[in-house]
Structures are given as C-alpha cells and as structure tokens.
C-alpha cells in the first residue's frame, strides 16, 4: 500500500518557541492551568464574602442584621446546627425526588413526542402549536388548578415539574432530528434505507448533541419546578421550597440561607451530572461533549 497520509501526532504540531519570547507564549503546565481555572472564581467568592460581611456589619444596624446574617453565622446556625441541617437535607431529598422523577418523565415524554413529530408532519402540525401554548401559559397561573385536580402531594409537584421541564426537550430533540446533513440522508436513500434504519442509525445519533443541550436546560428547570411545587403543594413531608417559605416567615435567616445554598448546590450537581453524561456519550466525536 502506497501513500497513506498519517494524521500528524499532536506533539509535532508546534515547534518550540525561540527562547526569550514573552512568557505568555510558553505552554502552561497542567498544574498552572488548574490554578488558572480555580483561582479567579475563588477570588470572586472571596470578594462576595467580603461584601457580605461589610453589609452585615457596616450597613445593617444590629437589630436589622437578621436580614443578612454574616457568613459564619450561616455556617454555624444553618449548617452547624444538626437538627436544622437535618431538616434541610430531608427537605432537599423530597424535592430532589420530585425533580428527578419529573425530569425523567419530561425526558421520556419529550423525546417520544419529538421523534413522532419528526416522523410525521401531521403530528408536528397538530401538536407543536400546543407545545408552544403550553410553554407560554404562565405556569404559576395554572399551578393552583393542578392542585385542585390532582391533590396537593407528590403527584401534583411532579406534574408542575414536568410542565416546566418538557418544552426544551421537545424543541431541542426535534431540532436535532431535523438538522441531519442532507448528504447523509442521500447516503441512506441510496441504500433504500427504511424509516427505522434512518431513525436509529442516522437521526437519533445526529440529534444526540442537541438532545443533551435540551437535557441540561431541562435539568435546571426541573429543580425550579420542584421548588415551585413545594411552595404550593404541602401535603406529605415538606420539600425544600416549603422549608424556605417557613424560614422566611419565621425570620430564621441562617437556616434560610443554608437551604438556599443547598438548593443551588443540588441544581449544580444535576447540571454537572448531565455534563458528565454528555461527555461520556458524545465526547468522543462531538465538540459540545468535551469540557464546557
């Protein structure tokens, strides 16, 4: 076999810069890069904590300090107080259950709906306008109705969560299924590929990056949906939303802040989980699956 162009090994792409070049041109070591990635956000965190302290101690009179207790008080009275923190963790667990079930239902339902829409124009024409309407209904306006119909427990919370998280999954999946390269379709047409082969071997794999984009957006929305559900539907064990509401009413600002921070961390964890899943699934061939 003659003439095989070998892909160039990455190491030979750059030649060493001549000595005496500006220090910015030198390739940073792995450790330096980690420092570069971690240091700036830490600096921002430090600044925010500083401003927080300043507001607590300098801007607020002592009797109004409950509006923004200093960070260490949040740490000791919110995270350090086991009974309060235990309550927060239990509440977060309840909310997480709703968020994950809601996201799972939204993902399954949204993907199936998008696949059906992509396979038959009449399905899209019939249902897409309603999906848009669903998205434009101010969800808070129909939340009481949902409670009225389905009760005030887990079921209603999950339904709210699904309603909020569904739309991005439908639109992103549909967009992905429709954005398949025309030449790839020709390739399948030449082999007289059927609808199923086209869907399984071409459309769904092509759509995966878009599907993951939708999942990441919806993962964040599902946490919001679950917290909103907590506020309205308080049957059964309290979720983090109803705890937050209770702390606010009781002016218990340290656990309030702890609960808010824990909810944010949960949202972040869900986002990261999907980021990781995307990287494991499509990172080998698609740019969006690499580090974001």
């Amino acid at each position, binding site marked *: *076999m003659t003439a095989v*162009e070998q892909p160039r090994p990455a190491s030979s792409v750059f030649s060493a810069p001549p000595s005496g070049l500006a220090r910015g041109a030198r390739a940073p070591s792995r450790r330096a890069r980690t420092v570069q990635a971690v240091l700036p956000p830490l600096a921002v965190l430090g600044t925010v904590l500083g401003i927080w302290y300043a507001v607590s101690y300098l801007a607020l009179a002592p009797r109004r300090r409950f509006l923004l207790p200093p960070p260490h008080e949040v740490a000791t009275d919110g995270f350090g107080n086991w009974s309060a923190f235990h309550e927060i963790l239990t509440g977060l667990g309840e909310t997480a259950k709703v968020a994950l079930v809601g996201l799972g239902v939204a993902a399954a339902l949204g993907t199936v709906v998008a696949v059906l829409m992509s396979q038959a124009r009449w399905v899209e024409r019939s249902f897409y306008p309603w999906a848009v309407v669903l998205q434009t209904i101010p969800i808070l306006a129909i939340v009481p109705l949902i409670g009225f119909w389905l009760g005030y427990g887990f079921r209603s919370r999950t339904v709210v969560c699904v309603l909020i998280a569904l739309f991005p999954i439908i639109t992103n999946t549909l967009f992905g299924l429709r954005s*398949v390269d*025309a*030449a790839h*379709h020709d390739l399948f047409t030449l082999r*007289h590929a059927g609808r199923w082969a086209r869907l399984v*071997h071409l459309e769904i794999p092509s759509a995966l990056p878009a599907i993951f984009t939708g999942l990441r957006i919806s993962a964040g929305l599902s946490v919001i949906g679950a917290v909103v559900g907590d506020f309205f539907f308080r049957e059964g064990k309290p979720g983090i939303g109803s705890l937050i509401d209770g702390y606010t009413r009781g002016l218990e600002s340290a656990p309030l802040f702890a609960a808010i921070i824990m909810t944010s961390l949960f949202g972040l964890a869900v986002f990261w989980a999907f980021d990781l899943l995307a990287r494991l699934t499509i990172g080998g061939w698609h740019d969006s699956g690499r580090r974001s």
Partner: protein
Amino acid sequence: MADDSGPPDNGRPAAHRDPMATAPAGVALAFTGVGKTFPDGTEALREVSFEVRDGEIVAIVGPSGSGKSTLLRMASALTMPSSGTVAVNATAPGYVFQDPTLLPWRTVAGNVGLLAQLDGVPRAERRRLVAEAISLAGLTGFERHRPTALSGGMRMRVSLARALTVRPSLFLFDEPFGALDEITRQRLGQEVVRLHGQERFAGLFVTHSVVESVWLASRVLVLSARPGRVLAEIDVPFDYPRQPELQFDAAFGRTARTVSEALRESFA
C-alpha cells in the same frame, strides 16, 4: 427532512418512483435525451445523451452550475429526470460524494460497514467485507479511529472504502477530491485507477480539473454552461494502468489541450 437543501425535489426514497430502465448489455449507464428542470424553473440540463460502457471510466468537466452533480443524482435515482430516460445496469451504484459524509460517531470500521449494514448483510460477512475494503483503500491500522482524528485525504479514503463494500458495478464520483491538496488528490486518483484495475467497475467521474479528467478517464465529456448540454466527447487514448508521469507526456498534453479548449468554449 433532507428537502431544505440541494435541489428542491430530492425528498425521501420513493417506492412509487418509476423503476429505472435497464441499459442494454455491455452498457453500465445510458442517458438518452435527458433534461432536468427544477420546480423553481431552473433548467439544469437539456437533451443530454451519453453512455458509460461496462468497466469504463468517463469523466465529466464543465463550468459550475452546468448540472454535473444533478447528472450523478439522476444516475443514482436520487433525482428523477424531467424528460428523457436514464438507464442503469446496477441496482445501487456506488456513490462517492463531494464531502466524505462520514458519520462522526462511528469509527472508520463502523463507517465502512454502514452500507452493508443497511443492506442487511449478516455480521460475519460484513466484517469480512469491511476488512477487505479497508485493506484495499489503504486504511489498515486506522479501523478504530474516529473520522475527526483523520486528515481530509484519509477521510476520503474511508468514503471510498465504504463505497467499495457494496461491490458496485457502477461508481459515481462527485468531485470527490476537489477539497484536497494537489499531492493527496493525485494519490487518491491513482488509488481509483488501481481499484478500477482490480474491481473493473464502470465509473462516472465529475471533476473541475482537466488534468484529473484526462488522467483518470478513457473518455471526457465537456458540458456547457447552464442549461448543461454535452458540448464535446473526447477520447483519451492511453491504456491502464497509467503512471503519474503520464501527465507530463506530450500526447497527454495534446488531449488535455483539446479538453481545455472545449471547456473554454463552454464558458462562452
């Protein structure tokens, strides 16, 4: 699905399409009085007639927009002619697109095996076909690479290998090497001629390069500007296998000059 780019009528494969006429014995592909007008009124081709005989490579040159790709799309039933008949002696011709059109989530081996998989070839048989095509196309050792890890020339080899797995008796090339550098282009051209020597397929090769057309083909068709018509049909009097040095031969120069002059006329 695929209908928002390319010619407006290239929808899904359609079972309701008329079966294409069969070409007479010894002829792989025959166009007779073929015209094509797109729904938007663009007349791409008018009264095109030519034949590609079994085992023969015919090259097509012509200005951009002269309907060269449309011609290939009609030869493979991706597009139907508006008038005239296209007769083909192959159930599914091999098609090498302008871009490699590889599936980025599949490895080299996975991409090469795609067509056989779509044809429902059993796994063991498929594996054998893939191994054979990979070795024919010079891709040994790259089976598990993803397309993103390959150079443009290597990707084109994968595309070639993929088309080889279905053992087509007719190969359609749509300017496959246009985006590659000169040397890679020459090498892949040599590969096509070598594969042609082994597999004896008939080929219709669309290109912008006069040298490439003369070096590869035993006949060169020159198309006019839109609407495309066959302006000239030039025989290339060299035997296969051809050496790269052939292009510096005086006789080669004369043929290339004839093609060039016809091509220049087509721009008028």
